[in-house]
């Protein structure tokens, strides 16, 4: 089946299905002769998928897409920890001002714990995902780095 016809056939499926299986299904269709029987088979199952969608129409997208990778705990947890650390610092500054305190308070300790605890998670994510989906993993690592820098920025700026 030529690639143009394959793409037309794939458009018969629901959008979520296209996102999840579109690329690999297109490769399969292109490796097939594209007889009338096959076209009818694809059209019939596309209709079936529209009537009885897989996973009730909430199909996961491509497991290696950026959205799917960033939702993994090893991607999300460090970002959440950095943002929590940032919120703590900003909250502290908003309430007590940016003046440096002689003693490290509870907020400073929490900030340190949040920043240190994510250190083992970052290499775990990198090792697993840089091999599997390098482009998406680099995007997530950039997000994680951005979150770390944003959490550190007020501390460095105000010399807290």
């Amino acid at each position, binding site marked *: 089946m030529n690639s143009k016809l394959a793409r037309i056939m794939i458009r018969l499926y629901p959008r979520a299905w296209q996102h*999840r299986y579109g690329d*690999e*299904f297109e*490769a399969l269709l292109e*490796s*097939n002769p594209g007889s009338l029987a096959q076209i009818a088979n*694809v059209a019939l*199952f596309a209709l079936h998928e529209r009537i009885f969608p897989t996973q009730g129409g909430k199909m996961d997208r491509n497991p290696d897409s950026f959205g799917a990778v960033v939702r993994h705990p090893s991607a999300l947890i460090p970002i959440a920890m950095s943002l929590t650390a940032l919120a703590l610092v900003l909250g502290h500054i908003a309430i007590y001002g940016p003046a440096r305190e002689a003693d490290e308070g509870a907020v400073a300790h929490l900030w340190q714990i949040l920043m240190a605890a994510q250190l083992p998670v970052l290499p775990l994510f990198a090792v697993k995902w840089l091999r599997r989906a390098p482009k998406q993993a680099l995007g997530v690592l950039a997000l994680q780095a951005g979150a770390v820098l944003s959490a550190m920025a007020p501390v460095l700026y105000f010399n807290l």
Partner: protein
Amino acid sequence: MRSTQHVASPANDPELDHFSDPPLQVLASLASGPKHGHAMIEDIFRLCGTRLGPGTLYGAIARLEQQGWIEPLPPEDRRRPYRITADGSLVLRARLATMNQFIQAGLKRLESL
């Protein structure tokens, strides 16, 4: 005399010569190792004489993946291989055991005819 050339003998009837249950065929194919779509179609054809259409194959794959009986592996070029999960192996074993029981019982009944 009427020719019997076109009278189908049950033993040679091509419609009876293959088994068709796409999800079970996919599980049986993946039992011998991970495969991508095209390899599954060829393997299933060798296994039971049925050539699955692309829509049928991916209908089965999507539902087996949804049930957690197969899982995708990282894509090779644009083709994505799948492998059977531990749950999928259990299901396949149970289904084949039931079928085997049915076949044995059916053959026994035929013997007594």
